[in-house]
């Protein structure tokens, strides 16, 4: 207990002594955390969105004629052999007609006189909702095209492909901003710790002379790194939350709020990001100690 109060006092004194570079470091750390978590938030929401829009992920395989039950079994067997497929559903002409009627709603009288079997029967294939299956959807649809009796395979091609490349891009951006985060935090923290070490060289030497343990000398600097990480990442996260709410407010229409179900990180994710940033800072200060404090 006494140990920690003494350590904390040392840490505070250190940080006050080099408050300018402390401020710089805090700013850099929080900015890096903000940038990284901003992109990560977009990515997470995009994934979420992709999973939510399952209807658009469905492939519709149009058939030239109503398949008899053994044929249906054949189709089922051939399609389900792909483990990316969650389930399939047969829709015959009559069902398709009924759905179409429902979609038209009040305008359904335009269908007057149209034969009930003018829509082709189809198979609706629901792939597993994951990015992995999205990436293979094109090859899968090519395969479905080769099945006998298939007129045409339809899916939200454009949309899915664009969405998929967006997700790919986001992955790259996240990796880049993540490495930026790692480099800036460790570098900046190591830099400030080095400044503190230099400004207190005389005292550190004296501490050693009067019988301080290595831990006694080291701990305040590790604590300083941890504090920088904690404060920096915390304020970065707070800034992101503010930004998030502001953006939400800008788009707050009656329709869009339900259309774009954006959500902030859950608590565990927030804690994870803050914890990782803190860990990085501790590593940064540790490397500075290793280099500049011959213990």
């Amino acid at each position, binding site marked *: 207990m*006494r*140990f920690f109060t*003494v350590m904390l006092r040392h840490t505070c004194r250190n940080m006050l002594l080099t408050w300018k570079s402390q401020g710089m470091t805090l700013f850099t750390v929080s900015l890096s955390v903000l940038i990284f978590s901003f992109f990560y938030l977009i990515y997470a929401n995009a994934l979420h969105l992709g999973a939510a829009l399952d209807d658009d992920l469905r492939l519709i395989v149009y058939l030239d004629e109503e398949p008899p039950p053994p044929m249906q079994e054949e189709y089922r067997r051939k399609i389900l052999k792909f483990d990316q497929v969650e389930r399939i559903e047969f829709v015959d002409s009559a069902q398709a007609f009924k759905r179409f009627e429902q979609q038209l709603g009040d305008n359904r009288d335009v269908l007057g006189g149209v034969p009930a079997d003018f829509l082709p029967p189809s198979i609706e294939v629901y792939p597993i909702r994951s990015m992995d299956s999205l990436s293979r959807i094109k090859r899968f649809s090519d395969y479905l095209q080769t099945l006998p009796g298939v007129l045409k395979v339809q899916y939200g091609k454009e949309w899915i492909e664009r969405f998929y490349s967006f997700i790919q891009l986001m992955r790259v951006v996240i990796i880049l901003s993540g490495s930026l985060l790692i480099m800036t935090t460790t570098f900046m923290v190591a830099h400030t710790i080095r400044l503190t070490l230099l400004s207190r060289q*005389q*005292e550190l*030497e*004296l*501490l*050693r*002379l*009067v*019988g*301080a*343990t*290595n831990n*006694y000398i080291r701990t305040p600097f590790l604590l300083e790194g941890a504090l920088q990480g904690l404060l920096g990442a915390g304020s970065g996260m707070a800034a992101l939350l503010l930004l998030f709410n502001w953006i939400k407010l800008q788009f707050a229409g009656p329709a869009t709020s339900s259309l774009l179900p954006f959500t902030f990180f859950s608590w565990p994710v927030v804690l994870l990001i803050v914890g990782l940033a803190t860990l990085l800072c501790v590593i940064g200060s540790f490397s500075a100690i290793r280099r500049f404090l011959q*213990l």
Partner: protein
Amino acid sequence: MDTSPPEAMIDLIKVSKIYPPEVQAITDISLTVNRGELLFLTGMSGAGKTTLLRLISRMEKPSKGMIDVAGMDVAKLPQCKIHLLRRKIGMAYQDFKLLPERTVADNIAIAMEVVYRPKSSIEKRTRDLLEQLNLTQKYTARAGELSRGEQQRVAIARAVANWPEIILADEPTGNLDADTTARVMDLLHRHNRKGATILIATHDKTLYQQDTHRVIELSFGRMRAPQAEMPDADDAYGEFIPPVSEV
């Protein structure tokens, strides 16, 4: 503790120290200091007194020979165990080694903080020492603003603050008047009576002239024969001897 058989606290065996490149500071010194002893170390400037004290507290490693302090082989002590040795030793450095930006109280407290003494006890001990050294007014003064003599007393206060088993005082009275010198010697004697082993390096003959304690004289890094009985008979450095003060 005076009745128990003498036990070596500091034991030097044929110790030499050569500073790079070729400065022979200490040559072949063998010396045993018993627990509870008070010993004066004299010799002219450059004789190697400071070097000897630095060797004992492991601020330097000997070039040759063995040093044993409180049962520890000082030369072989690994870096991570040096604090065990340093905690047994309180040293008043010739150049004081005070932190000029910090207060007098902070400078003294630092020695007690590293062994996690409770705050109240630190404060009490600090005030007590300052009073004994006639520095009560300077509790919150910055160490850098003190006079040399005041700084010297703060350095001594820090050295004895933890009641160390061994006190090494390097020229503890160099900047002090007779009265204040007496106070400092009083403080050191008091710690000696409580069992501390004390080494005092000094030029000041008046410190030991009337004293019955052992005196060792260094000359060009070598030990002269003990001359505790008649230290002033050999005036190695014909300097002015101040009038004897009442120690």
